[in-house]
């Protein structure tokens, strides 16, 4: 072991994580904070379901319900799903393409801290006068009308977190374009890397409209502008467009990496290469492309006129085609294979029918004329939880079990994994299947309670019971994680036995410099190819040499923290607090000062010397 990873002690570890620029540690940071926010968002979901279990319930008040609802949606999408996806991007992509690190390790760390401070800022609203309460979509007329600082927390928090996501996206694009190991052509990239690539591109083009929308919202609420103020000549539909120009690609930003994870898991546990690899790549790109041309399907009832509605309806339907290609390719990957039902595979197998069910209701929603009935009813809630929970969350849970050994070097308990899988699966369908009918029966979404006698009672109760199952499933999962880490039984490089891609060729967890020698890639499923030829490790593409590594730095933490501080200044400036503007300025000074330091102090990184690497060899893989 080289000297860099030693020292330690508790504080040492904390400091190590605060300053780290190692993509594997950043992945863990994303996992911990994203996982934490998932629990928070889930807790909020449970409160929603408790409140709606019976009619005229007063478990929470109307205003509080709207806050919980808004924070549930916002937290789940921005603070749970996105960072958890970034967790796997970080943990897996550099290894899959045989890279030493990402293109911009510093920026990678900065992206995480921006997300983290944005998320913390957003959630502090609970303690500082109330959370945002205008829905995760925060439509302009209501959000301008909303008293207190809730919406300010929303706009500023998402702005900070969103900046982190944007630079994270650029980082992965450059990493994938520039840092692939020799021999890894685009058409040899594992599918997860492909989805990471397309998702990052979507991030690059979808987040700027959100950034602008949020700026306009911030200006309107805090600095007196008139973008959405009708009396001042403004227009609220602008916000709706910005939100959905961002929002629709956003759901594909979430689902594509999920598709990627399943495209890794299915071949491994079918022992068969991915069926139709090139059409999968093609479909991924096509979904990404079409994803930008359909946003107005969220606005069918806004009154855009029949021409716009018809165009967007047909464009939306087109997405069924590439998605269908994927579904059939997955099934045919299993066809003729040797399917083994491990926990990750169970999630993958359950994902297929669940996502098809959610996807086809999406196509139903795309029928503009019928969407006038579905829109803003529980039918929509059912649709998107089918695709988000049945697609994204299943993928994240599958990925958690699948990549856990690679990230931590231990194996989650399979029995517990399966128990929590079944509980989650049953609970999920119980919760959301019935909501389709609630919607059709006339129950609008985002209602804090409903009156008895409208026929909503039974279905809502069933739905709430389902949510309880999901709650238990999550508890079992958390227990599993703790239990596994306490036992700490180490595993080998390729613990599932059938790993196909490069990440399974090195130890679990990998050394901090990843590949000692950059591997030579000779085809798709590089590691599988070598194994089939009876090799025990990858053929290197270079001799052992010094490895250049980036230095740790605390600056990302401070750059992000400065914005966090500045956001308070901007927000309380509305209340004429005398300290607000100074705080705003101090925040910006912290940020700009840290950026300045970053650019004037040369940071060339350091080298791990050949000799130290030779040492490592003797110790062998950790197992």
């Amino acid at each position, binding site marked *: 072991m080289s000297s860099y990873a030693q020292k330690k002690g508790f504080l040492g570890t904390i400091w190590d994580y605060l300053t780290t620029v190692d993509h594997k540690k950043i992945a863990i940071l994303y996992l911990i904070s994203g996982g934490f926010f998932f629990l928070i968002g889930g807790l909020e979901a449970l409160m929603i379901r408790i409140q709606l279990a019976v009619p005229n319930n007063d478990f929470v008040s109307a205003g509080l319900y709207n806050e919980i609802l808004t924070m549930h949606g916002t937290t789940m999408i921005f603070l749970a799903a996105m960072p958890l996806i970034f967790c796997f991007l970080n943990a897996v992509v550099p290894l899959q393409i045989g890279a030493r690190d990402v293109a911009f390790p510093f920026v990678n760390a900065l992206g995480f801290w921006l997300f983290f401070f944005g998320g913390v800022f957003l959630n502090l609203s609970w303690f500082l006068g109330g959370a945002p309460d205008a829905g995760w979509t925060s439509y302009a007329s209501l959000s301008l009308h909303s008293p207190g600082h809730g919406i300010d927390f929303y706009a500023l928090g998402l702005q900070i977190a969103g900046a982190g996501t944007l630079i994270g996206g650029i980082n992965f694009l*450059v990493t994938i374009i520039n840092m692939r190991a020799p021999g890894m052509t685009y058409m040899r990239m594992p599918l997860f890397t492909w989805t990471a690539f397309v998702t990052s591109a979507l991030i690059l083009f979808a987040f700027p409209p959100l950034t602008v929308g949020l700026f306009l919202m911030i200006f309107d609420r805090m600095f007196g502008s*008139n973008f959405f103020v009708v009396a001042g000549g403004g*227009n609220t539909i602008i916000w709706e467009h910005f939100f959905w120009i961002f929002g629709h690609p956003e759901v594909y930003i979430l689902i594509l990496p999920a598709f990627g994870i399943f495209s890794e898991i299915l071949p491994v546990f079918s022992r068969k290469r991915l069926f139709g690899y090139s059409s999968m790549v093609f479909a991924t790109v096509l979904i990404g492309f079409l994803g930008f041309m359909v946003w107005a399907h969220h606005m069918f009832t806004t009154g855009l006129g029949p021409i716009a509605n018809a165009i967007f309806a047909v464009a939306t339907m087109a997405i069924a085609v590439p998605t269908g290609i994927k579904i059939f390719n997955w099934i045919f990957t299993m066809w003729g294979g040797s399917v083994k039902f491990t926990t990750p595979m169970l999630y993958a197998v359950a994902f297929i029918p669940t996502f098809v069910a959610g996807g086809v209701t999406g196509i139903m929603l795309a029928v503009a004329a019928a969407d006038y009935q579905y829109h803003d009813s529980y039918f929509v809630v059912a649709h998107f939880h089918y695709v988000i929970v049945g697609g994204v969350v299943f993928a994240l849970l599958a990925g958690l079990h699948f990549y856990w050994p690679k990230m931590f070097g231990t194996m989650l308990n399979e029995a517990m994994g399966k128990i929590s899988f079944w509980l989650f699966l049953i609970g999920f369908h119980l919760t959301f299947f019935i909501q389709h009918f609630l919607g059709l029966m006339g129950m609008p979404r985002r209602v804090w309670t409903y009156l008895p006698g409208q026929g909503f009672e039974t279905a809502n109760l069933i739905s709430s019971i389902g949510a309880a199952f999901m709650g238990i499933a999550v508890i079992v999962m958390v227990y599993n994680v703790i239990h596994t880490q306490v036992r700490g039984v180490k595993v080998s490089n390729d613990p599932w036995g059938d790993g196909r891609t490069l990440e399974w060729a090195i130890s679990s967890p990998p050394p901090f410099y990843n590949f000692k020698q950059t591997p030579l890639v000779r085809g798709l499923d590089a590691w599988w190819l070598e194994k089939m030829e009876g090799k025990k490790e990858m053929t290197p593409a270079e001799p052992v040499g010094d490895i250049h590594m980036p230095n740790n730095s605390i600056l990302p933490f401070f750059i992000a923290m400065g914005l966090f501080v500045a956001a308070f200044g901007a927000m309380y400036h509305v209340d004429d607090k005398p300290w607000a503007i100074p705080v705003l300025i101090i925040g910006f000074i912290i940020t700009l000062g840290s950026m300045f330091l970053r650019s004037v102090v040369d940071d*060339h990184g350091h080298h791990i010397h050949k000799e130290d690497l030779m040492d490592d060899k003797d110790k062998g893989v950790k197992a």
Partner: protein
Amino acid sequence: MHAEEKFTPKTWPAAPEKSTLEGKNKFLGFWLFLGGETVLFASLFATYLALKDRVPDQSMAHAKDLFELPTVFLATMLLLFSSLTSVYAMYHMKNYNFKKMQAWLLITVLLGVGFLVLEIQEFNHYVHEFHHTFTSSAFGSAFYTLVGFHGGHVAFGLLWITSLMLRNAKRGLNLYNAPKFYVASLYWHFIDVVWVFIFTVVYLMGMVG
């Protein structure tokens, strides 16, 4: 360290900005960033187009009443010329002529400052003569946000180029800072690209009505 190796004009590589992996990454990453910026500015342009001349009270100034083309023309010339001067700077960078590069960068910065001064004067004029402010109407909000975002970019670019010049004044060109200069000049060109659309869409089209 490769990046700090000393060069002569002869050993200096043909594409110094892309000769190291770091340089390559920076180069590509920055272009991607510009792709995102394109969408960002497009969003601001779109907002402006939707809110142009939207004022609560029709007696308030519209685009036609406000703009004065001579000033805009002057500002345009300053910015266009600064784009050319930054090309000259990169020309000398490629030829490993640090002094000349710095000189041209300095001219670029001066032209940029001139542009900013004109813009601030212009805003000042609108505010005092026409009471056309950020908060007076949706039109005002959209106008100042679009043009101001661009102005902010100019200001940031000036700070950036200046600090690059100062930081490297003593040590000259190497493969560590060449990509930085190159990327800063890309940024500067992009600012010019945006301005071309601003003077066309905001000012010229504003005068046509």
